[in-house]
């Protein structure tokens, strides 16, 4: 990359169960806190990157925020969208189209469910490719479960191995005072939790929460005068495969294989140089498939690979250090929170869950849809 770009501000809004705030309010709360973190001013923002609402959503959001950006992006490919936004924002920053990018997200997914204005497993209607799926009753979880089932069939992966991801992520959450679930769990707890869609148990699934987040990126020149140590964006890439499950050629091969290879190459580093990993964990199987796609272990080897607790803070491969979507927060499209936690780890701001020695390189990999899209971002500090 020619002109370097950096993450200079990160923040969450209040998260967990937040019945008294709207999704927009969570976004303005997070944006305000991220600006404060960066030292930049509201009027500096000239690029807006967000998704999660209906058609013309950026207009609704920009109007609510009272800002009038010159660069607008509302790509929407699920939870990986935020990693793709980094790719897009950096491209816009590098050529001088913008100076300061705001990535912002907010959702009241949990409270909406309680209020009965949203259903948990609402699929799209019977139009387009959905007409060939929804009449058969697949749930979102069952689509991920189909990948887990195939992985077990091809490679002998076990429910115990899947459960390890959840157990170790909960350990990390226990070190995070803001995490929604902090009590330690065991493999048996996961296996004893009720089956939602075979082979995925309740504790193989991410939690649902309300919450918002914001990330601010800017150019090297501006980053130098921001409040905190710049977190450099060293490499980014995206990839997509399918939307309909029948169109996914190989249920054990995630397109992170492409996006990660490309992002690492751009960063000029190898996967074994990375000190901390923030990997989308919609379900335990998502993490296993991601570890293989990143090349951290071979095809089919991820189950055995995670069995020694290496994903814990203090382990050899600290992953989802804030407790991830499995235990910390998950308002729906969680990719933004991967970036926030990676920046905190690289700055050395992660408190009890801080990876030691302080990491210099982090990799975030978002996964969206039904294991459909991936975005990889490699971050580093000087």
């Amino acid at each position, binding site marked *: 990359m020619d002109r370097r770009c950096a993450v200079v501000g990160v923040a969450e809004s209040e998260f967990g169960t937040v019945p008294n705030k709207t999704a927009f309010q969570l976004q303005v709360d997070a944006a305000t806190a991220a600006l404060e973190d960066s030292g930049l001013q509201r009027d500096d923002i000239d690029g807006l990157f967000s998704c999660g609402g209906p058609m013309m959503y950026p207009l609704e959001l920009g109007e609510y925020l009272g800002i009038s950006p010159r660069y607008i992006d509302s790509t929407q490919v699920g939870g990986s969208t935020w990693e793709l936004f980094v790719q897009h924002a950096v491209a816009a920053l590098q050529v001088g189209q913008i100076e300061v990018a705001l990535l912002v997200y907010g959702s009241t997914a949990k409270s909406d469910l309680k209020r009965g204005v949203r259903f948990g497993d609402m699929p799209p209607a*019977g139009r387009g490719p959905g007409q060939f799926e*929804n009449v058969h*009753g697949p*749930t979102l979880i069952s689509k991920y479960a189909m990948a887990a089932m195939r992985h077990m069939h091809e490679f002998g992966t076990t429910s115990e191995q899947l459960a390890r991801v959840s157990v170790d992520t909960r350990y990390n959450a226990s070190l995070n005072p803001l995490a929604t679930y902090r009590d330690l769990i065991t493999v048996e707890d996961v296996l004893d939790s009720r089956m939602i869609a075979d082979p995925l148990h309740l504790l193989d699934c991410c939690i649902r929460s309300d919450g918002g987040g914001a990330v601010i990126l800017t150019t090297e020149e501006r980053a130098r005068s921001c409040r905190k140590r710049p977190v450099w964006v060293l490499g980014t890439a995206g990839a997509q495969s399918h939307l309909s499950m*029948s169109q996914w050629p190989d249920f054990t091969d995630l397109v992170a294989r492409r996006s990660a290879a490309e992002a690492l190459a751009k960063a000029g580093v190898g996967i074994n140089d990375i000190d901390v990993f923030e990997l989308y964990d919609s379900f335990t199987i998502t993490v296993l498939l991601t570890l293989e796609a990143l090349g951290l272990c071979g095809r089919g080897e991820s189950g055995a690979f995670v069995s020694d607790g290496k994903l814990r803070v203090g382990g050899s491969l600290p992953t989802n250090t804030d407790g991830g979507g499995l235990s910390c927060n998950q308002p729906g499209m969680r990719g933004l929170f991967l970036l926030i936690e990676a920046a905190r780890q690289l700055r050395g701001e992660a408190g009890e869950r801080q990876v030691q020695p302080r990491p210099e390189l982090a990799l975030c990999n978002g996964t969206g849809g039904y294991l459909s899209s991936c975005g990889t971002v490699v971050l580093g500090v000087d």
Partner: protein
Amino acid sequence: MAAWYLPIPDSESEPFWNAAAEGRLVYQHCRSCGNDYHYPRARCPHCWSDQVEWRDASGRGTVYTYSVVRQNPMPPFRERVPYAVGIVELEEGPRMMSALVEARPEDIRIGLPVEVVFEREGGDDGMVVPRFRPAR
């Protein structure tokens, strides 16, 4: 108004649903690149040729993968749990999603030979939908 989960045929998919109503399972074949595919598209997704034709499938296939849904808040599926749904690979190659019917969920496994059956969904105003059961 038709139930929320029923297919809404369009100009590209109508022949598929009309064939199902006649008890035939069809897929598309590209005369240009030779690929067979599902779901129906006016141009081949492999080469964008519009030289595509409909073919009758044998109705036989195998289970590529599946899950057993034990929780679904949406009617009519909430009354059907637990049920198996998965991806069937047709003898001819293309894959399709299908409920796996006329079997107990615990009898479904990957690699199981299956055959097509046609089921009506949504009552008299509904649709005929191809699904798969264990081969007999």
